[in-house]
């Protein structure tokens, strides 16, 4: 994490005996001196606007493209141009400080924070220079896949832009939470989210420790699967399974030939798509020929595929699917 300096307010007395019996006059001097010092410190503090909020401002942050941004104080007008960022932002920051989000944030089918989208927020379909400029944001959170021409245009017009590039793995999601915390000054809330994720993940790990790990295959409705570096890979492993696609050499996201499923021979198949896709898979001859199809262990993970701390929901669900006996009530 980028370093920043914390100025700790030091004050208070040290209880220290000052030589043999100090006279009353000396005590009075000490008291007066202490008051004076305290008074000076307090006035100094009062005149320092940066210390009005939490300590640590102005601060320097570096985005995922390496751009350095200096923030004078906690941004009060934050614009988010990406669903993942919307989710994190609205989870840890006061909505009054958020001036814009994407329309997916409003959609309960995509967003865990739909109820926190307020009327004053601008709803974007895609990155639109006019709308962003019009609300005069302090900082704009963009993804590296937003239109680079428009991003450049805004940057040249003096808008502060923070670019996120990591949207693939669980680690990316947790890192994003901490970064957004650093940007907004809500580090406590950010850390709390991450810690909750870790503690719940630890509980899952404990529950599935030592048990035989089932062979798991992730399949979406493009017949695509994932390898190391992608969130589902991490989640399968954390839920106590083994990602057979990784074994087979898949890296990133790849569409596979249905016949490759036979070679991978999974015990369980998981998907993020709905029950309709599950039914299609169960009726596919290739799936019926592998243990997952024979035992009916083709499941859809009922959590929205958002890149955020909500990954824990998927992990917990999958742990239950892989090791039902560990979670028996």
């Amino acid at each position: 994490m980028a370093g920043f300096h914390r100025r700790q307010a030091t004050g208070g007395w040290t209880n220290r005996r000052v030589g043999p019996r100090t006279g009353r006059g000396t005590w009075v001097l000490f008291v007066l001196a202490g008051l004076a010092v305290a008074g000076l410190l307090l006035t100094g503090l009062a005149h320092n606007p940066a210390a009005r909020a939490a300590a640590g401002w102005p601060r320097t942050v570096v985005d995922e493209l390496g751009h350095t941004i200096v923030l004078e104080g906690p941004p009060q007008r934050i614009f988010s141009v990406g669903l993942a960022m919307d989710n994190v932002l609205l989870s840890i920051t006061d909505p009054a400080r958020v001036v814009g989000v994407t329309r997916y944030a409003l959609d309960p089918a995509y967003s865990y924070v739909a109820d926190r989208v307020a009327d004053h927020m601008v709803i974007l379909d895609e990155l639109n220079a006019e709308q962003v400029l019009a609300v005069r944001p302090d900082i704009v959170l963009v993804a590296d896949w937003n239109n680079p021409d428009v991003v450049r245009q805004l940057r040249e017009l003096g808008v502060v832009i923070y670019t996120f590039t990591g949207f693939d793995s669980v680690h990316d999601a947790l890192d994003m939470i901490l970064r957004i915390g650093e940007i907004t000054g809500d580090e406590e809330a950010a850390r709390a989210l991450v810690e909750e994720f870790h503690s719940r993940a630890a509980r899952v790990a404990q529950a599935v420790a030592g048990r035989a790990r089932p062979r798991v295959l992730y399949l979406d409705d493009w017949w695509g699967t994932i390898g190391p570096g992608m969130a589902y890979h991490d989640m399968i492993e954390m839920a106590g399974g083994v990602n057979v696609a990784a074994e087979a050499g898949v890296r990133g996201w790849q569409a596979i030939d249905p016949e490759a499923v036979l070679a991978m021979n999974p015990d369980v198949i998981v998907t993020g798509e709905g029950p309709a896709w599950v039914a299609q898979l169960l009726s596919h001859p290739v799936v019926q020929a592998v243990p997952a199809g024979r035992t009916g262990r083709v499941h859809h993970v009922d959590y929205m595929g958002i890149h955020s701390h909500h990954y824990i929901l998927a992990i917990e669900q999958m742990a239950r699917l892989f090791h039902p006996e560990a979670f028996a009530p």
Partner: protein
Amino acid sequence: MSVGRQAIGNQVDGMGVRVSVERRAASIVTPPALLAALAALLAASVVVATALGTVRLPYWETARIVVAKALGLGWPVDATHEAIIWSVRLPRVLAAGVVGLGLAACGTAMQGLFKNPLASPDILGVSSGGAVGAVVGIFLGWAAEHAWLVPAAAFAGALVTLVVVYALSTRAGRTDTATLLLAGVAVSSFAGAIVALLYHFVDDGVLRQIVYWLMGNLAGKRWEHLAVITPLVLGGSTGLWLLARDLNLLLGGEDDARALGVAVERTKRWVIALTALVTGAAVSVTGVIGFVGLIVPHIMRLLVGPDHRWLLPASGLAGASFLILADLVARLAFSPVELRPGIITAICGVPFFLHLLAKRREMVRWS
């Protein structure tokens, strides 16, 4: 001789026979009047498209900002509004105009050269080649770096494609137009296959950038983009206009043109090169926007006739207005959702063309 024509006067012809001078039906608008009307339309389009947008700004303020900035006056204006009008909207509107002009002019030239009503600037495969160049550039991660790497890659792709297509259809200095057409189609398909192949090797983010580019995109265009493409497009289009008489003569067939003194092969080379230059420049900055180069020349031909001396400037002006207004509709129709301008050009262009076609069938007989 014929019934129902108005005789204005008498004249003695070379055969010693008195005949009456017949006047043609005055149902076609005179070319100079049409050009003036189109120029006015263009000016109006620029004004309207700059005044309207996703963010509502009062008209007087827009006018004030434009005047102040253009004349260098130091009037106090709201910085954000100035940024929106002068740095975001105006360059975008002007870019749409320049690209529309170029695509329409090239479409006119291509239709004349190939004597084919389906010809458009993409017919030489130039747009597809540009697409491949751009996709490769995006794939290599150039989009995030310098603003010019991807457009330059697109332009390079366009020119390489042109060279390939030209080489395939030229033997001993003679370019066969039928082969040129087929080579262009073949190369376009090939380029499309390459792009589709690249889809498999890219991740989601890059895929999105590629799709942006391929669907035609006017967002984010700045004065720097304009500074480069305007001379290329205007210069190339003017070059095509200078070849207007040659194009007229070529309409009658290559042999007839040659008999009249046209250096046919040289003219073809120039037309192809200028088209590639203009299309490449346009496509490199805005991606592929279809229909402008196909529909606008047809519509103009029905209004002003086939004479390229009038047709080329008319198409250029009309194409500029068309794309500006199409982009305006794309921006506003479902605000704040922004549509691709290509969708609007398709929806508008086709029905209008069908309507005109039904009315003026005698003008469009292709030999």
